């Protein structure tokens, strides 16, 4: 009982790792989790096809300065300069609307060359 209550007091579910793991990640699950827990990069899914870079910048700047952004169709990656800024996005921007669509953010291991970025099986959007 005591463990549960204290755990509830310190709950931080919005920032916890989701079930998603990159099937193309070069390394084991433990390594991937380690990177995810330090990551400043977020995957942003369920973007409208018309969502612009400006809109993404405007919304995600509300939690901190954006270092880099990579777009694809329907999803993108946003990297912050600090972990704290990314956490703020997970707490407060995830699950709200951008361009009328409810967007979804999740931790990502970060930008690397030759990575396949899509989260669908064939590399596109889920």
């Amino acid at each position, binding site marked *: 009982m*005591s463990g549960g*209550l*204290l755990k509830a*007091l310190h*709950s*931080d*579910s*919005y*920032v916890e790792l989701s079930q998603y793991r990159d099937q193309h990640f070069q390394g084991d699950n433990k390594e991937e989790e380690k990177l995810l827990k330090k990551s400043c990069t977020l995957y942003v899914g369920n973007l409208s096809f018309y969502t*612009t*870079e*400006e*809109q993404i*910048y*405007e*919304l995600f700047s*509300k*939690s901190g*300065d954006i270092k880099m*952004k990579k*777009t694809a169709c329907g999803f993108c990656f946003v990297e912050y300069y600090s972990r704290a800024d990314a956490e*703020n996005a997970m*707490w*407060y*921007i995830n699950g*709200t*609307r*951008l*361009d*009328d669509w409810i967007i979804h953010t999740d931790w990502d291991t970060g930008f690397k060359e030759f990575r396949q970025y899509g989260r669908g099986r064939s590399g596109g959007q889920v």
Partner: protein
Amino acid sequence: MQKICESSARLLPEKLTIYTTLVGLLNARNYNFGGEFVEAMIRQLKESLKANNYNEAVYLVRFLSDLVNCHVIAAPSMVAMFENFVSVTQEEDVPQVRRDWYVYAFLSSLPWVGKELYEKKDAEMDRIFANTESYLKRRQKTHVPMLQVWTAEKPHPQEEYLDCLWAQIQKLKKDRWQERHILRPYLAFDSILCEALQHNLPPFTPPPHTEDSVYPMPRVIFRMFDYTDDPEGPVMPGSHSVERFVIEENLHCIIKSHWKERKTCAAQLVSYPGKNKIPLNYHIVEVIFAELFQLPAPPHIEVMYTTLLIELCKLQPGSLPQVLAQATEMLYMRLDTMSTTCVDRFINWFSHHLSNFQFRWSWEDWSDCLTQDPESPKPKFVREVLEKCMRLSYHQRILDIVPPTFSALCPANPTCIYKYGDESSNSLPGHSVALCLAVAFKSKATNDEIFSILKDVPNPNQDDDDDEGFSFNPLKIEVFVQTLLHLAAKSFSHSFSALAKFHEVFKTLAESDEGKLHVLRVMFEVWRNHPQMIAVLVDKMIRTQIVDCAAVANWIFSSELSRDFTRLFVWEILHSTIRKMNKHVLKIQKELEEAKEKLARQHKRRSDDDDRSSDRKDGALEEQIERLQEKVESAQSEQKNLFLVIFQRFIMILTEHLVRCETDGTSVLTPWYKNCIERLQQIFLQHHQIIQQYMVTLENLLFTAELDPHILAVFQQFCALQA
């Protein structure tokens, strides 16, 4: 069990009476448990105070007070503790904020335990009260104007927090401590609890003031509603009722407990016990706006409040949105006297909120702003909101969501302005070079190729030209920056790539201070319709060291920007620039600390191993530390210089305005002046921790007694904040 109660005391203060009752029952069963618990709480309290955790300490004091109600702590010993608290008001040579805290800790516990303490020790309590009253009468309140959300006293006065609390406690005392709002579970267990043996609190000496002590800042109590605002529902407790204090405290505590879990936070807020007797939605909205508008800064990041309000709207779709709309209307009506910093936050909140609800709003209700001077607060507010809404959507959408009458307030289409673009520009100097550059850029020219094209550009400041012609040449900068930014106009990414690819050219052209300023000027001319692009470009240019922070500050105060000086984007750029400077200093300081720690560890290892060979390793590390030390000093100096430049420029333009008004015999209080003086205030408020370091310099160099009293007042209010 002890750990749970201790944690709950700190982390769930809104539920404290549940846990104090639990402790009371356990104490009744096991006297030793009670004793150990109280000792642990006192230890915790001392630690919190020493660690400057004053907000946590207040909850601990409140918890201890309620333990009196649960027969765990003997009332006389609690009174003695409060005597010691209030005696801090007699301390000399300590900051007022220290004395304030101890008075606050005493007064804010009284709604819970005032009755019990008065019943047992009324003479002593009267004495403590008299001391408190005399302190409250003599303390300084210079800081208050700087912390008020509105400058007007009507309809709700913005009271200083201790004044408000004192009035509430006075009223409670007059009502013979009858307090009906707090849930007191221990009343149901009175027969068990009254049999319990009580403990005496050990004599408590407040930890002395040290140089490292940092006390909470004073506050102003934010009020926007009263009982007239919800005529059909339960009556809202008056501003000086203790119920109002307790409700607000508890709602603030809930937000504090659950800020990371917004759904839980919203659920806890709407299920507040006793909600049927109070207009809960009004209290919730008021408390959230109180935090959002709090000066100097909200307790949490602004976007948190937007998302929390959205969650609340989802949870209570039939009632909360209406209250929120009512609140928005009220805030709009009172824009004329709202502090500029708070207006900024209102703009950001409202635009972001609308973007989650398809921008639906009854804009016609605000048609009154259309006939006002466009520089006055209401039309300005609408313009800024529409601009922000556009950033979250697109230009045509904004034109569609407002009535046609509002088109004058709609933002410009964010297009690029290229001066060499059309036929009429043939006669402009540098036109042919611009065309040449355009061709070169399109054929993926290198930096060297660009340099050689630019070599042919004449320098309008011919006298200043000395060496290879790479001294400040405004025309070179003009053709290069205009053409490059125009070609890269498609998106932020394109523009960033352009800055990165031709970084060398940028650095060379912008080597001098005038060069940096001119780069910013030209960039602004190209993108003056797209403030968002301006902001991201300035950010990138600072980060890639094309321009420095001081250049941005000087640019903002330059004549080219005077027309846009009161626009929000300008101040967002300035504050972002200052934040970058601050983060840079912190980063290097951290590197220096880490290097020093590394050296210390190495020394320790050496003394343990008695190994001579690491002398050489030391040398490299010591050199690194020396270099970092220099870097830190240089960065700190740059940081200080940035603030001095900003303050200096403010003083210059404000003085100019004040002198002109005096000469012309016109009123000082123009919309421009209100905006400008509050922007100066905002610099102090938003960066108060850093600026505290410069107090002596500021006092001796800039904010001297000869300064106009209007400007000096801002500085004096700031000094009073931590005095």
